[in-house]
């Protein structure tokens, strides 16, 4: 690929790395979390425990799933995140049964990671149904679902994991058709009776709110998911001892209550975590709580400021990606438009990029670009290429053949022909492509939150994990407004730069 692309990647990478590491102090630590409520909560507890011991914590919360968290930790983009034994053994390490922490740590050695001592609770997968329906149909155990006419919908992760639906269906002889559903949307869907059976975590706070019953796993299918902190195996003794207080501090019902406080009462993670730490400061070995409380109070008040920050970051992400896509997309289009084969190849490549699921693309890039701003821009850049390249190539290659012939007969060289004929005539189509790319990119940029790059996706991701519509709208409405504004601005710009036709 062109030198320009590599140069640009390098520049973006460089600025991203240096922006990210500005607070490089000896007791600085980056705490990650996945994008579901309990992971936020556990990460927040770990973060506050560290802050109470004078660590400077950077939070990379809401990363898009196990793979992204794991890769980010492996590559040193984050220093720790809360993980579950079952997730590691089943989804990452391919260990059979319910391995002990020692066995897991043995397998983790290959990746240079280590699971610290467990928090004390087991948050396993559960299959749930509505209480009322369970009573009506006499459902108690998972096996009772056999042969029922209920609607099954499971989270995407559960559908794909080896310890998820495929194995479950086999073990219990279930042959119902299933559909995928975003985990955070599953509860309201259950409530609306749109679906009847879904997967849940056994510590979910919503189980009580929506009156859902956990069906007994009488065949012992689900592995144990004991939570603990995952770190790099060269983590300092200091950091280990700072986290040691979390050992056996939590049980299932406690966590269910925490989750309910967040999901049902609308308390912030930071508040719930701070309350827990205040109640247990002695056992956690935490002395100074004032700072934690101040910080909590501030983050509660400042959501408008935070939103403005997300908005600016969103603009920055889409703007950078769009500029790169324009520069590189147009250069490549100009290079290849005259060759039917190369042009088709380029459009095919850009189309292929469009079909790669965003999370997969982000996970694939972690070893090279890490997490955060840079890979988010690269992903957005790749998604923006297609409309720009396709419009540019189509318009440049399909200039009226009579005019092309005339321009040649007049003695215009290839460059002059491009400059005085093809480009001016292609300008409206090229602009339309850029406009499409801009609007798509503003929508897609919400995925940046999955790799900790911020933007308006952050309130959306957190809101989804909390089933908090207000918070989702706090991200979605500004994103929609931004898309409309950009559309209008581009339309105006297009009228100015297009040649008269």
């Amino acid at each position: 690929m062109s030198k320009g692309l590599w140069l640009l990647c390098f520049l973006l990478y460089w600025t991203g790395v240096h922006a990210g590491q500005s607070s490089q102090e000896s007791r600085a630590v980056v705490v990650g979390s996945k994008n579901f409520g309990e992971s936020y909560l556990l990460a927040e507890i770990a973060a506050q425990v560290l802050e109470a011991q004078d660590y400077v914590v950077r939070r990379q919360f809401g990363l898009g799933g196990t793979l992204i968290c794991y890769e980010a930790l492996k590559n040193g983009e984050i220093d720790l995140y809360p993980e579950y034994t079952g997730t590691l053994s089943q989804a990452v390490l391919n260990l059979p049964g319910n391995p002990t922490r020692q066995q897991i740590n043995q397998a983790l050695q290959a990746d240079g990671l280590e699971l610290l001592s467990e928090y004390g609770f087991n948050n396993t997968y559960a299959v749930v149904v509505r209480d009322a329906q369970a009573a009506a149909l006499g459902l108690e155990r998972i096996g009772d679902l056999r042969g029922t006419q209920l609607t099954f919908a499971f989270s995407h992760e559960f559908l794909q994991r080896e310890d998820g639906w495929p194995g479950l269906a086999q073990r219990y002889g279930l042959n119902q058709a299933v559909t995928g559903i975003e985990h955070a949307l599953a509860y309201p869907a259950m409530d609306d009776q749109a679906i009847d059976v879904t997967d849940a975590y056994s510590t979910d706070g919503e189980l009580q709110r929506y009156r859902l019953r956990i069906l007994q796993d009488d065949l012992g299918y689900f592995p144990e998911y004991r939570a603990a902190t995952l770190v790099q195996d060269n983590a300092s003794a200091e950091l280990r001892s700072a986290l040691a207080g979390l050992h056996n501090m939590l049980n299932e019902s406690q966590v269910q209550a925490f989750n309910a406080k967040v999901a049902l009462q609308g308390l912030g993670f930071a508040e719930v975590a701070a309350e827990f730490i205040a109640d247990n400061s002695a056992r956690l070995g935490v002395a100074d709580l004032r700072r934690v409380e101040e910080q909590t109070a501030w983050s509660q008040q400042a959501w408008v400021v935070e939103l403005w920050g997300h908005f600016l970051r969103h603009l920055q992400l889409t703007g950078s990606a769009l500029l790169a896509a324009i520069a590189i997309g147009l250069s490549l289009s100009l290079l290849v438009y005259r060759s039917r084969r190369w042009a088709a190849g380029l459009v095919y490549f850009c189309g292929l990029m469009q079909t790669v699921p965003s999370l997969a693309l982000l996970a694939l890039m972690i070893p090279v670009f890490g997490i955060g701003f840079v890979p988010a821009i690269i992903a957005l850049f790749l998604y923006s290429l297609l409309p720009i390249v396709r419009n540019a190539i189509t318009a440049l290659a399909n200039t009226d053949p009579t005019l092309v012939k005339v321009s040649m007969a007049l003695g215009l060289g290839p460059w002059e022909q491009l400059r005085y004929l093809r480009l001016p005539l292609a300008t409206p189509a090229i602009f339309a492509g850029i406009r499409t790319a801009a609007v798509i990119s503003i929508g897609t940029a919400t995925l940046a939150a999955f790799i900790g790059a911020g933007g308006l996706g952050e309130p959306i991701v957190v809101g989804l994990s909390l089933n908090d519509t207000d918070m989702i709208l706090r991200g979605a409405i500004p994103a929609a407004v931004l898309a409309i504004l950009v559309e209008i601005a581009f339309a105006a710009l297009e009228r100015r730069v297009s040649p008269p036709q």
Partner: protein
Amino acid sequence: MLAEKQQPDVAVAFNDVVKSFGSLEVFRGLTLSLPKHQTTAIVGTSGSGKTTLLQMINGLEKPDTGGIEVFGQQVPTQGLEAFRRGIGYAVQGAGLFPHLTAQQNVTLVARLDGWTEPRMQARFDELLRAVGLAADVATRLPRQLSGGQQQRLGICRALMLQPPILLLDEPFSAVDPITRLGLYESFEQVRETTPATTVLVTHDLREAKRLAQFMVILDAGEVVQSGTPAQVLAHPASPYAERLIESQLS
């Protein structure tokens, strides 16, 4: 052939030219000389190869074998741009660039050739007068002009650099009969002031008769007859020429 090259009154010479498009053979050994300082009309039905013949003169089409000479110089394979700037070219429908004004269209190549503003302006004004256009068309876009005006501007563009030879591909056929008569008059006027060698492709025998001093009848890539219009029309030498004349002039 050597004798032909030295002939002072030959503008374009085709020497045993073979040309095919895929499996379709257009010319199977065309040998033909076109006279200097005259207007030659290439006449034939659609598909007779007349446009291909014209486009081989300025290198838009390349012969498979055989050679084409313009004023004794072989049509080059390299540096075609410079060669083409010495050949005027106008087509049916004018082919003006839609995003440029009338003046920008006509003067584009002169600008690329590094002409000064005053020189371009003077030449443009001169051409407008020659083809009978008012000065106020200068700033208009092609879509704001009539078909006849566009066609006149197309001829102005072809003449801008004062080429010694002018190629016209049915430039008078896409306008109404009255406009066409006006265009003929303009063309005749222009030829009086700038007597370039002209090759005119047309399917219209009346047009050929009125504008040309030399006439070539093409049928399926073969020259079936050539000579002055008066000779050809009075003594058609083949059934094809006869039918052509009968269909249009009787």
